[in-house]
């Protein structure tokens, strides 16, 4: 079976390399740019953690044009959340009994994919795999992680765990992925905006009471928003996880900070917009709203919204 990686950046590259090393055929749906050129020419190169050895794997196909790609049984979605709609052309490539699994940040992606592919073929999950892009087509694995996922509607999809697990990825199946997505969202909503606007190093966060104070307010708003959509989160559990995670982080930069520094569009809508959509009125969720407004103003002033 051919697995398609939609969005073969740092994380997509690491996952692709694992699958290729495990003997699967992998193709990449990738927008035009240096990464596409590099993947096409050389395939994906995975550097070991000590940067001393590397392996390069050729891809079955690489293109931004579906007519150059092969029919596929599984699409892993790793494009930025605001680019999810750009996957529509893949609809005709996905085999009838195939599935599309989103591992993206934020809310709304599974819904968008359901509109494109039909909800019975959509699965959603989170991943703690991490990757750093060293140059186009060359990635290094960050955290050794795992994938946890489940069907977006109905049931099944265990077969995805079978295929990806056999190829060497650590992967768990759950019946309903919504709780997972909200947990991940609460991490992103608490931490990412604060890191993006202040540039604080992740490992320094526990020594910065002002950042912690703001993150606590944000974290409580996410819990409230989740409850309104029927998902019960435990604030203390999320908080402990975040603190624990930040202590173990060496010099990792959250994606939103990386985007901010590189002048790329940030995932403000998917991460904070989904929470604000659950506000009762414009006074609700003032902390989330303030950060949303500040980050959107920055993205707008950089010409990301026309």
């Amino acid at each position: 079976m051919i697995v398609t990686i939609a969005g073969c950046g740092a994380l997509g590259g690491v996952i692709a390399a694992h699958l290729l090393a495990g003997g699967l055929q992998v193709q990449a749906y990738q927008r035009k740019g240096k990464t596409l050129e590099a993947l096409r020419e050389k395939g994906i190169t995975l550097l070991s953690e000590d940067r001393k050895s590397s392996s390069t794997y050729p891809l079955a196909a690489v293109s931004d044009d579906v007519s150059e790609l092969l029919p596929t049984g599984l699409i892993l979605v790793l494009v930025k959340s605001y680019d999810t709609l750009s996957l529509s052309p893949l609809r005709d490539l996905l085999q009838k009994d195939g599935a599309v699994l989103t591992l993206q940040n934020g809310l709304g992606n599974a819904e968008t994919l359901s509109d494109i592919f039909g909800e019975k073929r959509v699965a959603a999950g989170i991943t703690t795999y991490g990757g750093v892009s060293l140059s186009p087509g060359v990635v290094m694995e960050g955290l050794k992680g795992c994938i946890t996922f489940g069907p977006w509607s109905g049931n099944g999809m265990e077969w995805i765990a079978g295929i990806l697990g056999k190829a060497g990825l650590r992967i768990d199946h759950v019946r309903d992925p919504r709780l997972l997505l909200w947990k991940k969202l609460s991490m992103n909503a608490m931490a990412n905006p604060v890191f993006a606007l202040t540039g604080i190093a992740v490992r320094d966060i526990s020594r910065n009471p002002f950042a912690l104070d703001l993150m606590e307010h944000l974290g409580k708003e996410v819990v409230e928003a989740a409850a309104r959509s029927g998902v019960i989160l435990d604030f203390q559990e999320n908080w402990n996880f975040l603190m624990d995670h930040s202590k173990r982080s060496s010099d990792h930069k959250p994606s939103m900070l990386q985007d901010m520094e590189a002048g790329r569009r940030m995932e403000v809508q998917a991460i904070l917009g989904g929470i604000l959509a659950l506000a009762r009125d414009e006074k609700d969720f003032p902390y989330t709203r303030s950060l949303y407004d500040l980050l959107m103003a920055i993205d707008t002033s950089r010409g990301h919204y026309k």
Partner: protein
Amino acid sequence: MLVTMAGCGALGSLLASRMIDGGLKVQVLQRKGPHFEALKEKGITIELDRKGTRWTFPLEAVSHDPSRLEKTRLMVVLVKSYDTHNILPARDLLAEDGVVLTLQNGLGNAEKLADGFGEYRVAAGITNYAAFRIGPGVVGWGGDGHIYLGPWQGGRKVEWVCSVLEKAGLSVSCVEDPRPFLWKKVAVNATINTVTALTGMENGKLLHHVPVLEMMKSVCEETRKAAERVGVSLALDDLWDMVKDTMQLTAGNRSSMLQDIEKGRMTEIESIAGEILRLAEDDREFPYTRTLYSLIRALDLSRSPQ
């Protein structure tokens, strides 16, 4: 007449140059550093336009030590608000019937000066003259404005201060109670300075971002409530009009807090948003001000040597 400028940074230099131009003598109390050395050697240099037209204004004396300066009837304080306590040793410099006038940003400065100089000798005011630092001893003219000032202790007469400054060519109004004016300026600083510092935008650019304007208006409402708790009653519309007017009048300027952030200097957030939050009933009140405060404090802390 001899005027003492306590803190002769960008704004202090601009005002001092006007006074010298208008026939007053100015001596400077200034902390050591390259700017101090330049003032001592050459006096104040003002750059009037982008073509680099410069004028230099001679100073009577420049010292970091009050005992080396002459006794004076008028002392104008323009050190950063977190340095106000450093001015207290200069109390003996002020004649018994003299006035120490703070034109600093934020709240709490007049109170600190009153502790050292005696309440009856303190006047407070606001100004929107604008200046920016170009290099040691060299300051750019950012635009002329107006000064509102009045006695800190009700009933005291400080009209003579206004006439001295007015005669020297500054635009000045004497008011009975400066407190409402200080609070209006705080509303301006708590909105424009914080948001520009976080987004990197010039003051006028904020006018294009409607959601951010709504957030800033919420900060004005929080400021209004805080002022009410210390007996200063202001109308939301007045505060908001002043903020909007300031953005329009200073559209091309980079706020002092943005300049501080860019230069890696400590900001004056504590005397601005910090003073509003000290009047909150609990840690959930004033969420918009709290968000901006937390972000700026987090930034300040992350850049200070640990």
